[in-house]
């Protein structure tokens, strides 16, 4: 049975991960679980010069750690992520692949000098989790502003878009073969 696996990359707020299980399961109509035992320590991906963690290295590590998992894997962390050519990323995913990684670092209001807002951050995290997992299902960025697959490179842009797929993206995702099986229809 294919499923979605959430892998904690420490440090990470466990309560936030737990809160993702139900809505993610709902969005993709797949079982979602948190991998409690095999959490990841991202020290190997740390770049001391940039004081950030290399998300591409983390994706490679997740692929190696779960070679058997038939489904999608999303690693979630509170540390700041980057890919070498960019100053930062919210997350990274293999397009039409198995693994995605996501950071809550830049989704926090404190980073922008505002009061903490746990509720808002949880919504942002969910949107970005659906977005990155969407990429693993082969979806590219969508031009519909309210679609969750709309590209967002700032927290405000995350707030503008919705947490659901637009009709077109929904269709595309359902057409994508999931592992060897087709993605189950409603």
């Amino acid at each position, binding site marked *: 049975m294919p499923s979605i696996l959430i892998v904690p990359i420490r440090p990470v707020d466990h309560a936030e991960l737990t809160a993702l299980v139900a809505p993610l399961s709902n969005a993709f109509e797949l079982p979602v679980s948190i991998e409690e035992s095999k959490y990841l320590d991202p020290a190997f991906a740390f770049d001391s010069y940039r004081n950030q963690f290399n998300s*591409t290295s983390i994706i490679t590590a997740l692929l190696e750690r779960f070679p058997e998992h038939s489904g999608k894997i999303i690693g979630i962390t509170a540390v700041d992520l980057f890919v070498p050519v960019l100053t930062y990323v919210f997350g990274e995913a293999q*397009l039409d692949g198995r693994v995605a990684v996501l950071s809550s670092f830049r989704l926090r209001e404190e980073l922008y000098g505002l009061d903490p807002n746990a509720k808002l951050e949880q919504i942002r995290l969910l949107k970005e989790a659906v977005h990155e997992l969407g990429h693993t299902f082969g979806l590219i960025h969508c031009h519909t502003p309210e679609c969750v697959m709309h590209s967002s490179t700032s927290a405000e842009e995350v707030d503008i878009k919705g947490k659901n797929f637009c009709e077109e993206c929904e269709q595309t995702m359902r057409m994508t073969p999931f592992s060897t099986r087709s993605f189950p229809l409603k």
Partner: protein
Amino acid sequence: MAEKKSAPQSILIVDDELIVRESLTKWFRQDGYRVESAEDAPHALKLMNEGPWDLALLDIKMPGMSGLDLQKRLKEIDKNTGVIMITAFASVESAVQALKEGAFDYVTKPIDPDHLSHIVANALKHKIIIEENMQLREQVSDIAKATDIVGESQQIHKVIELAKTVAKTDTTVMLRGESGTGKELIARAIHANSERRYFPIIAVNCGAVTESLLESELFGHEKGAFTGAQYRRKGKFELADGGTIFLDEVGNVSQKMQVELLRVIETKQFTRVGGNEVISSDFRVICATNRDLEAAVKDGSFREDLYYRLNVFTISIPPLRERRSDIPLLAEYFRGKHAAIMHKAVTEISANAMDIMVQYDWPGNVRELENVMERAMVLAVPPAIQHTELPFQLASKAHGLQADSLAVVERAQVEMILNRTGWNISRSAEILDIDRVTLYNKITKYGLKRP
């Protein structure tokens, strides 16, 4: 405007660092672009030739050829490709240089993702606007040219009517007429009134170039097809896709090219010189010749099958001497045109000069008339053009009849005035200072006929 269903926009990434190529490629693929990358200048140039690319991201510092030099080379291949330079903090100066040489913008490594997506979106938008602007300019100039047919004679009206009728169809048109009668003008008018008007009209003078050159002109060539073929080049048939190709002096092409022409016109498919790829193009053919093609077919110098393929709908444009009533109109038109160009307050043409021009036979037709008027405008002292400012051969021909008998002079004078007024009997009689009955008698006596 008419638009083809657009393919995804394309981005070419050139950087010597693998990790940069990989992460940018991934980033842009997720944005839905078609992306390729190259690690150095030679590879980039190769991909560029296989283009077209909407946008190129170039690392400014690479071993071998720098991004700055590469930018120049890329622009030589396709000047429409937008360029964004990627620099390290240290090389902002060279980024400024890149901007001066036509790069759209630059980004510094590591790139702010927010900044990157906006810059790329802007560069692509900019490119679309430039392309649209060029297309619109071409259309405007095509439309402007199409209004330039001057004349009120019956003969030219007939030509315009035929052109209007055939414009709405996709039929092949052959324009016959002496040199300088305005065959290209009519071809452009047909195109401007056709459904294809939003696409280009491509004119090729088949008589002006050698056979091998004409072949690569018409069909294009691949890189390395012959000495000097440094880059791939599109041919005229390919450029005319969606529009019209105007083959001027089609009667002068060699036997070998006649075969090639026949094939491409029949199949609408061809290959570039030195290439294997079969290219399809949707074009309409308008051709023109002043050669006696029927005689050429008879003596075997023009293929009969090509003749029938081209000679579907023929429009014959009369020489200027057969529509003399248009000469004053045309002369006035060219006077106005060149007065505007030269900023010269020459507002009229003296009656004497006009008489000479109306009588002249104009072997070079409208083109010759325009040249004569341009010359006269250079010499003219405002406010009028005098007969002394016309070229010698015109004036001498006009005076040639002085040696003839009175009857010859009278006939010529009556004919000239009739032609000048467009055979308006009342006006002619008035100018000649005779009554209308006398004028009718003279017309009968000298056997004059309305052209």
